[in-house]
């Protein structure tokens, strides 16, 4: 009898086999997959480079600014970089299908550039990184953040110090 119950259940449920590759694959939302980088929200703190156990992340200074590279073929999808990133500039997508022919080996890289800018106060050349103003009290308005962003690190500190806090 037991055999018949199992048989009936299997008839009702269909096979356990996943449809992939003949159909879409089941992908959990929080699957640890390919790294994605958003240069606009990066603070340039380089913590992700330091905590990466596989040395998959490289920052480099170039005449245009600071470049970011994450090599998908070295990354071990541990999630350390996302965990330590203060601004969520780096994050893990749930994209797992990274298989590629060997000729494309060196194209498997996430690239980003934090461009140089000229400080609006002193005219010095500095990186256009996202400002580190998370702990500022009271929180900065969007315009204030943009103003801080347009300055070099020294002038940013000055700006925040001289900022008039509404009573």
């Amino acid at each position, binding site marked *: 009898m037991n055999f018949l119950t199992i048989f009936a259940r299997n008839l009702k449920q269909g096979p356990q086999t996943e449809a*992939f*590759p003949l159909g879409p694959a089941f992908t959990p939302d929080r699957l640890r997959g390919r790294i994605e980088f958003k240069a606009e929200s990066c603070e340039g703190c380089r913590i992700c480079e330091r905590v990466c156990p596989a040395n998959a992340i490289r920052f480099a200074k170039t005449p245009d600014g600071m470049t970011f590279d994450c090599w998908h073929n070295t990354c071990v999808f541990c999630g350390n970089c996302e965990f330590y990133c203060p601004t969520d500039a780096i994050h893990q997508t749930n994209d*797992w299908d990274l*298989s590629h*022919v060997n000729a494309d080996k060196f194209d498997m890289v996430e690239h980003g550039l934090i461009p140089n800018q000229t400080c609006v106060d002193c005219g010095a050349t500095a990186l256009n990184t996202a400002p580190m103003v998370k702990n500022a009290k009271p929180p900065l308005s969007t315009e204030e953040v943009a103003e801080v962003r347009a300055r070099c690190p020294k002038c940013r500190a000055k700006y925040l110090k001289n900022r008039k806090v509404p009573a």
Partner: protein
Amino acid sequence: MGLIPNFKNIATRSPWIYRINAGSCNGCDVEMATTALIPRYDIERLGCQYCGSPKHADIVLISGPLTVRVKDAVLRMYEEIPDPKVTVAVGVCPISGGIFRESYAVLAPIDQYIPIDVNVPGCPPRPQAIIAGVAKAIAIWRERL
């Protein structure tokens, strides 16, 4: 005359897979075993089957960063696989060294020693990713045959 293309058509349906462990941590090997052996992923739908001898293989899956100790054995085994063969590097270890990169004990990337056709990055890659890689390998293998 007509027989030979027929044989070819039949043969291209069923590539046999062989697995070489070039010093892997076993993570990728477990995923490869999962891919092949449990009904949930069932790679035999693609006509593939694992075989026990390199002499029967068509597609070879390599995992691990090629440690110095296993190098000779791996190269000898690779030589035994008849042509045309397609090589798939499973996991980031054979592709770049991954977490073991720049160690004195590993010789990765493995494509310095063995021609690699398809890479499946991941540490380990999930079974679906391995299936996607094997599907790419089968396409390449059909062209070579």
